[in-house]
């Protein structure tokens, strides 16, 4: 499988070591370690409340784990904040949609270009050539993303007015606009019908294939996970109980007991 890929799977880029996260008495994550390889699509699965989102939030700097370390591209990250992570080239989407509701689709995606726009407010206020050129350049990039995701017809609609499935797409678009080489998607296909899911998978695979973007995604649909991921991490009660290729994980007895056995499908 690795043979015909544009970007063959490489060395670990993200290494999470012995992370523990507690909320008061609740242990969301317990002493968990895993790594993500360059250019791979890694799925994180597990029952509700297993700690999947918390794990992403730790990597993203929204939660501060009490113990453990996170290294990205060989560098151990101290004092992680969402801002720092964005600057390091990690982008993400959120489980419960975190779009800018009153802004248009295009404006939402343009915010994703934030780190590619350096004009200060004075340059913008006076519409100096630098600000105008930058705006135009980034607008073109965003129009490309809009076309890629096939949402050109709604690009001027405020996102709050869109149905859920389209909002999920816009959020992916915003993450793509950052041009981060590491994407974390928290349940990108939740609430979608089969067709929409298939479309979303196509986008994810295409981005991974054409740009080599490393992906970490949380997904409940086992069919999707088995189809598109290179490796799967299984979480249960905040602990990692399996980590490996989909087939291997599927055959793991502990996983079957904890997750697949339960009526989750």
């Amino acid at each position: 499988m690795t043979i015909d890929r544009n970007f063959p799977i490489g060395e670990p880029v993200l290494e999470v070591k012995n992370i523990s996260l507690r909320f008061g008495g609740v242990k969301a994550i317990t002493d968990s370690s895993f790594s993500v390889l360059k250019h791979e699509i890694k799925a994180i699965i597990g029952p509700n409340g297993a700690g999947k989102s918390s794990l992403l939030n730790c990597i993203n700097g929204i939660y501060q784990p009490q113990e453990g370390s996170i290294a990205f591209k060989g560098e151990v990250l101290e004092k992680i904040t969402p801002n720092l992570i964005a600057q390091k080239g990690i982008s993400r989407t959120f489980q419960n949609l975190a779009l800018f509701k009153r802004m248009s689709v295009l404006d939402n995606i343009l915010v994703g270009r934030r780190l590619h726009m350096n004009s200060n407010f004075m340059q913008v206020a006076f519409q100096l050539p630098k600000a105008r050129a930058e705006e135009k350049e980034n607008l073109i990039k965003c129009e490309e993303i809009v076309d890629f995701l096939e949402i050109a017809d709604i690009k001027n609609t405020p996102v709050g007015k869109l149905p859920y499935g389209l909002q999920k797409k816009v959020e992916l678009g915003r993450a793509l606009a950052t041009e981060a080489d590491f994407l974390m998607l928290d349940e990108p296909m939740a609430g979608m019908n089969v067709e929409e899911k298939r479309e979303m998978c196509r986008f994810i695979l295409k981005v991974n294939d054409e740009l080599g973007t490393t992906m970490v995604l949380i997904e409940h649909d086992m069919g999707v996970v088995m189809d598109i991921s290179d490796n799967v991490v299984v979480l249960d009660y905040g602990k990692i109980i399996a980590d490996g290729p989909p087939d291997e994980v599927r055959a793991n007895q502990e996983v079957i007991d904890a997750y697949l056995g339960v009526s989750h499908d």
Partner: protein
Amino acid sequence: MEQKVSNNNSFMGYTRSDLTNFLIAMILSFVAIPLVVQTDYWYSSILIPWLCLALAAIGQQIVMGYAGQLALGAAGFMAAGAFACFNLILRVPDIPFFVALGLSGLVAAAFGILFGLPSLRVRGIYLMVATLASQFFIVWMIDKFGWFKNYDTSGIITAQDIVILGKPFTSPLEMYLVILVVVTVLTILAVNMARGSTGRNWMAVRDMDIAAESMGISLLKTKLQAFAICAFYCGVAGALFAFTYLKSLEPVAFDIKLSFKILFMVILGGLGTISGAFIGAAFILLFPVLLNSVGNNVFHGAIDATIISSIEQVVFGVLIIVFMIYEPLGMAKLWGNIKQRFSRNK
């Protein structure tokens, strides 16, 4: 795709309808009004305060409508700007008026940053209470230290005349034109910021701060920037208000009531639109005038003035509640809807 982009942007990122609107507004305000309106009353009691307060409302709009920070203290920043301008003209020999005005805005902006700091910790109603501190602190400071009032004990200090390039601008029409120039320039700058990346950063922070941060927007920088720019606009507005409308400098003119007035202008005019600042300011200013003249002309003074002013407050209160619930985008949005309906009927 290149073409698509350049088609929408006929000139420097403005659409054709932007440009026609702008042209109409310019001809109306710079040519038609000065030619048609001859009575001083219209300038000194309506147009001048309207433009000044609309400018302050733009500031409030930036921090509240765009950046989503519920701040209450616009009048405090206005006081800072007014007294800064007074002192600059008093103490700096031959300082050009527009330089003094700009510096007054910057002084207010410094206060804006200072009193915007609570926004990094608290939000909503708590932030509103915290920003109220600016209101009280600035007015207290001016009252407390005689230096700011040039040790005047009478309580009312007359504002200096506006002199530009040796020519005094003292008639209502002349003052109106000075304000109009300032308001035009600052409005264009505000529109540019609001439509550009600066405004997107503000709105992103307003709509979903955690996602904004994850896209690389610094909450600290963005919020304080919005507070600073808000205070700058309020500061300039305050200086103009004192020098052209009040014609005097008294801290009590910049009380909490004025802050609330500006807040209501923004809510009624429509949060998150620059035009809403103008519409809201017009409504808040004109409605009492209208009510009074109805009271005088229709009921021939049969209704007591105190009743009229309570009617005014009841109507404002009801309108604010109605707008908050049914049309948070305010009158600017209503106006847009009406226009849309008309163009569809054509």
